[in-house]
């Protein structure tokens, strides 16, 4: 009897845009689809030397429309696949005038 092979890991191609620049600077990073989104955000923060990400929000605007993402979720759990273009920046404040 042939032992079952573990399922092949799937990947997504990810880039992060901020007003401090893109991570990676060009193209995409290939990351496991089960990886938390926060991992690439941490890498982007360090590489782009972003000092303060308090109240920043992660979003995508793809075929399913614009939506915010939970950075503690994986790409798979966020319904993301293929090429993922993440936007990262400060959440809007205000209202109430």
């Amino acid at each position, binding site marked *: 009897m042939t032992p079952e092979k573990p399922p092949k890991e799937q990947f997504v191609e990810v880039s992060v845009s901020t007003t401090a620049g893109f991570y990676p600077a060009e193209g995409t990073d290939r990351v496991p689809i089960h990886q938390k989104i926060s991992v690439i955000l941490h890498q982007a923060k360090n590489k782009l030397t972003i000092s303060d990400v308090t109240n920043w929000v992660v*979003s995508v605007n793809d075929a399913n429309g614009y939506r915010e993402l939970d950075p503690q979720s994986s790409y798979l759990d966020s319904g993301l696949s293929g090429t993922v273009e993440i936007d990262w920046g400060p959440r809007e404040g*205000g209202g109430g005038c």
Partner: protein
Amino acid sequence: MHPAASQALFENEAAKLTPALAQRRGWVFHNLAWPVIDCLFTAPRRTTLRLQLHCDDWNDQPPSIGLLNADCSNLTRNLVNPTNVFNMSAHPATGRSFVCMAGSREYHTHPSHVTDHWAGYKDRASHDLGGILTQLWHAWMKGND
């Protein structure tokens, strides 16, 4: 702030609003030269919004932000606006619709917010020019008109 220092700071921050970032986010810049940022927010199936950020005396003062139609006429239609950032009532000083969000001159001069001083925001990364524009974009993207 000395006008030359204000211009230098503006130009340093405006340089980060690159064509690649604009393409990613659907921003179309008609002007990025001191002291005005003139930007369209565009997205499929959305009505384009035009914003003009008048950044004279940046960053001792926040930008005065005009809400416009794509053709540069004053915005009069109601924006579907779940975040209440885009206030369609008349601002007491300008008589026009305005951005009700820290980082807009109209917010900090509105009688409801004159005690919420710009000085408390001006040095935050979230309130440099790119940060303010990003916040406005997030607010707009949450609408659906």
